[in-house]
């Protein structure tokens, strides 16, 4: 674990914090989005905001797979287990606690008798299919480019061993498409977020490579710094972004060189290509329909596609009334701007997806940052005032 300690060293953190205080220009406000929920979690778990000057603001992005899955897709899974008693739904734990329509979660469906099992990986789901040949096992596949290759390998394995009682409910989504959607929001609209630069995902970038973000710098003139998940990684990437912005540069830089290359992992990309195909469009919680932003199982592997096998149908559905997850996921609001935060909504009884997952912004605020409420409230009032002035 020496390896890890090296990236959590207090001395070096203080050095980076001092550099940030010195280099952040007083007249300027830096609004940086950490796309990835893993970074949001790290930011609060290590108390990174305490080391930043007031004019560097971190905006939390949509990079949390459980968070961005729209209610309608969760409802599909719910209908599947309720209508098909022969189905065992195998899902990651977090997904089970997200409230769907009528605020019912898969966990509640399980209590009512539906066969829903928590698994740690798709291999567990394959094992379930092997040991329950008389049942239909459906793996609830969610996630960004990091979890897609394992799902692809699982499907390949199912074909190899002719596991015909196994299928995947595929909800895999793509990071660059979501970044683009955020950048595409009209700056004059209510929805606009005004982001100066991105702290780029670490694990996702290991798979897709840093070149995948070239459009941010090229088309939109926004810098991206790909960062590791350790606190010193995050601090250093913030410093790299501040430097780019100060110098008027917009480049794709890689702080996480110990794992990320420009091209990514070709093998992983290949299996994904083999098994999946692009969906023309997909709905994201908070970001709406985004073209070519998600994957479906390709025709060659259609027999493993649960949507086809069970004729599942997507019906758009609204989230919990009053839940600000959509705005939180766009970076347009902070969790504390939600009236339900820490009143009706808590990790114990979540009303929205952002309070469920460890990577969700609401959960991170609640679990690690509650004492910041006053400071955050001030910051968010300030932001609203600035925006109002600008619009006037």
């Amino acid at each position, binding site marked *: 674990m020496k390896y890890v300690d090296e990236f959590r*060293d207090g001395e070096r*953190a203080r050095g980076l*914090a001092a550099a940030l205080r010195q280099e952040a220009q007083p007249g300027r406000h830096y609004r940086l989005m950490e796309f990835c929920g893993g970074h949001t979690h790290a930011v609060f778990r290590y*108390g990174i905001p305490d*080391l930043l000057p007031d004019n560097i603001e971190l905006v939390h992005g949509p990079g949390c797979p459980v968070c961005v899955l729209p209610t309608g897709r969760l409802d599909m899974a719910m209908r599947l287990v309720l209508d098909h008693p022969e189905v065992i739904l195998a899902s990651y734990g977090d997904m089970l606690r997200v409230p769907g329509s009528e605020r019912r979660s898969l966990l509640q469906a399980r209590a009512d008798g539906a066969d829903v099992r928590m698994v740690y990986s798709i291999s567990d789901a394959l094992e379930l299919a092997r040991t329950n040949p008389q049942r239909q096992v459906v793996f609830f596949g969610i996630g960004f480019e990091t979890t897609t290759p394992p799902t692809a390998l699982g499907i390949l394995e199912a074909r190899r061993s002719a596991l015909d009682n196994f299928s995947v409910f595929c909800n895999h989504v793509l990071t660059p498409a979501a970044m683009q959607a955020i950048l595409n929001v009209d700056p004059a609209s209510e929805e606009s977020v005004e982001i100066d630069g991105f702290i780029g995902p670490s694990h996702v970038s290991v798979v897709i490579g840093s070149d995948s973000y070239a459009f941010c710098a090229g088309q939109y003139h926004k810098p991206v710094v790909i960062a590791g998940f350790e606190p010193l990684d995050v601090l250093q990437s913030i410093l790299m972004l501040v430097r780019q912005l100060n110098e008027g540069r917009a480049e794709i830089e890689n702080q996480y060189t110990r794992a990320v290359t420009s091209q990514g992992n070709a093998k992983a990309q290949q299996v994904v290509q083999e098994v999946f195909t692009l969906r023309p469009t997909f709905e994201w919680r908070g970001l709406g329909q985004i073209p070519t932003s998600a994957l479906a199982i390709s025709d060659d592997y259609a027999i493993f596609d649960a949507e086809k096998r069970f004729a599942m149908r997507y019906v758009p559905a609204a989230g919990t009334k009053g839940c600000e997850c959509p705005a939180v996921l766009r970076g347009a609001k902070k969790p504390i701007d939600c009236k339900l935060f820490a009143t009706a909504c808590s990790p114990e009884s979540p009303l929205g997806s952002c309070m469920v997952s460890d990577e969700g912004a609401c959960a991170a605020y609640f679990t690690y940052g509650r004492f910041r409420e006053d400071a955050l409230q001030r910051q968010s009032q300030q932001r609203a005032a600035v925006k109002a002035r600008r619009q006037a």
Partner: protein
Amino acid sequence: MNQVDKSFQAGRRQTRKLDLEHGRVEMNHGAGGRAMADLIDLLFRQAFDNPLLNQANDQACFEVAAGRMVLTTDSFVISPLFFPGGNIGSLAVHGTVNDLAMGGAQPLYLTAGFILEEGFPLKDLARIVDAMAEAAREAGVLIVTGDTKVVERGKGDGVFINTAGVGRVLDGVTVSGDLAQVGDKVLVSGTIGDHGVAIMSQRKGLQFATALQSDSASLNALVAHMADAAGGGLRVLRDPTRGGLAATLNEIAAQSSVGVRLLESALPVRSEVRGACELLGLDPLNVANEGKLIAIVAADQAQQILAAMQRDPNGTAAAIIGEVIEDPMHLVRMVTAIGGERVIDWLHGEQLPRIC
């Protein structure tokens, strides 16, 4: 089976003793007859051997000392039953001894109730009972009465154990969860998370290699040393078992209407525990301990109490890890290694399966 065999078996039953090598728990071991008497005589009574138990009554009768007594009970339903550094038997003694010790008491007597699943190997049961006996001897406590029930196969998980205990509060000691005061120091008796990680390392589906041993131990001697060293400044004692340090400190903060601030850099955590937690996405602060205590003590006595702890074999890695602060929200927070601050919360949502 033919007639002759049956009668042969029936004949043998009269003199049959316990087959500790190959035997298994049978329904009649809990039925109140001969088999149950054999089990009690040959296994429990031999291991726990003491005059009160040997009276063989349905209850233990003893003199009561002057002063204040404490009484506690705890049930143990763990999986796996055997883990590096102990088993359910040693844990059942340590757990109850520590519950008494955290009340500032020296433990005197324990009871032991067993719920056994039909088919459980007697050899394993003997190992568990021996570990209990040994743990009791080490803690200087007597197991004076007990109970055994057998449930049908599939209706238990091998062995469940309940222990209850009585003890006498040490002179001059008054500890309670609501006595923490702003300015007090928070101490921990050693490295955190060892027990939980040792158990998880054995569990099916989570197996990973670690040389880590559970920290399961009786802490009554440690508490006696601390009480000797403290001039009345011992305010709160608690063992951070299930839910770990985080849950225990949150309980104390709520009970005493205060806040707590920890220093991450002062927390003793073994590198193996840190590594395993990293791998499993856990926080050592939420992981169970079975041989550690948290003490909240008056600031001016913290150093002398710490020194006394470090002289005890169960407190060599003791450390001052934080202080009690004023906080209307009664939060537990921590200054992180990099110098930021965050809340230390209870664990939310589904916890991992039972680990203590």
